[in-house]
């Protein structure tokens, strides 16, 4: 059982306050979705949880299992089991997906890392995600379409088996078929490992596959309303200006 708790988080970047007095608690087995208009701080939230030092935390605390993680580096947070599925996964030429994943898994498992198990697991996951097997030897996201990049994020998630997922607009850039695969694979992962999930999205279509327990509307850097799935229907009918 893991808990990610955010209290009174206030964050600025380039002298502009992005998050303002933000509170949220997510436990293992819970799926939370944050929705909200553009520029309201959703992606900032995901990066601040992960420890991106481009953002200045003015106030507030982030706890993981009651441990304050404000001062932990990005990789230390990742090794606790926090995983950020990026909105715009980067292309890194020359660093192959295989080398990248091997280094990541080695960092997680240390001396327990077994190369044979790694290759076997990677091959199986690539197949399950209906990805091109050759992609594993290409540079990270090199020449990948938007959909392939998102599937690559899901591949990394399966390889690293995190306990807390922050998925930042994983539906953007996906066609209908890819959305179905990604949505279903996230739910398969949820059913198998029961992680805490924080989903950030603009659209209901992803929620056809990933069913949240809690829906939050974020505006001006904090949550202005929380509810259950019915809130999604209200947003679809009335837009964010309704709130």
């Amino acid at each position, binding site marked *: 059982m893991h808990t990610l708790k955010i209290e009174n988080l206030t964050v600025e970047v380039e002298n502009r306050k992005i998050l303002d007095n933000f509170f949220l608690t997510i436990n293992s087995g819970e799926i939370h979705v944050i929705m909200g208009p553009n520029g309201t701080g959703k992606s900032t939230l995901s990066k601040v949880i992960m420890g*991106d030092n*481009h953002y200045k935390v003015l106030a507030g605390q982030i706890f993981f299992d009651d441990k304050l993680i404000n001062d932990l*580096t*990005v990789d230390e947070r990742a090794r606790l089991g926090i*995983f950020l599925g990026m909105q715009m996964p980067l292309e890194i030429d*020359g660093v192959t997906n295989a080398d*990248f994943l091997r280094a990541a898994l080695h*960092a997680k498992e240390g001396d327990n890392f077994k190369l044979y198990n790694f290759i076997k697991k990677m091959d199986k996951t690539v197949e399950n995600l209906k990805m091109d097997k050759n992609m594993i030897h290409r540079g990270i996201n090199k020449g990948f379409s938007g959909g392939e990049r998102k599937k690559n994020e899901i591949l990394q998630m399966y390889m*690293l088996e995190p306990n807390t997922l922050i998925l930042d607009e994983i539906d953007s850039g996906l066609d209908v078929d890819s959305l179905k695969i990604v949505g279903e694979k996230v739910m398969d992962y949820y059913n198998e490992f029961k992680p805490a999930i924080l989903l950030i999205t603009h659209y209901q279509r992803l929620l056809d596959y990933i069913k949240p327990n809690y829906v939050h509307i974020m505006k001006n850097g904090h949550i202005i309303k929380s509810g259950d799935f019915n809130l999604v229907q209200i947003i679809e009918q009335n837009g964010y200006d309704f709130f």
Partner: protein
Amino acid sequence: MNKIVIGNNGLKEKNIDNNIKVNYSVSNDFIAVNNLEISCLNDTDILLDYIITSDIKINVSINLSDNVKVNLFEKYNDGILKIRNSYNLNYKSELKAQKFYDVEQIKQFDVINLNGEKASINYILKTISSNCEKYNLLINHNAKNTTSNIINNAININDGQIIFDVTGVVPKGNVECLLNQNNRIVTFNQNKCQINPNLLIDENDVAANHSAFVGKFNDEELFYLQSRGINYNDAIKLLIKGFLISNLTFDDEFMADLDLIIKKYWG
């Protein structure tokens, strides 16, 4: 693959087939200069391995006959080198030159002469600079419809300082030439690093572009790697290796050597 090894005392190993002819001599007029001439008669692969620990001056001339395609691999290890390479390409010949440097110091002047129509060169240079390195590269588009694609990548560390001086020349009348220059130095110190990209073009019907970058690795790339649990040092090592091997197609033996080189500098 044809293999030629140059050592401190000149030609160390020559294992070649009928696709190339090699002449090696030492001129001793004032200062000893090693001269190596390679004529490429048919499609082939060549490895030029420089295993040098002392000061040495070398003139290399590589000539491609009409319609010949050559993959050339050059490895420069250790030593203080002064090198002049001349690549001469005839009609419709294609050269892919992949050059990797881990030397003490180097001054290099490479001249590419695209002498025949439709000749093309893909020139990829990678170096780890830890002292003083200067690379001059002159690309002469001496015929119509010739192509040059130049990639110069350097990692600058310790007391390293590095200069890339890259000049593409197209005289009037040599239409439909393509020129591309991509020069990039990732530096880990405050020493002088300089890129001088020049395009001297006296013809309108030419497509030319260049990019130049001197700086550090992108923070977003580091964030991405670290967000998967990889610590800062290992993330840097991954980026360095990726930067140095991208666009290269050296064999597995070279890749293993590269791992050792990275270990030597970054543990």
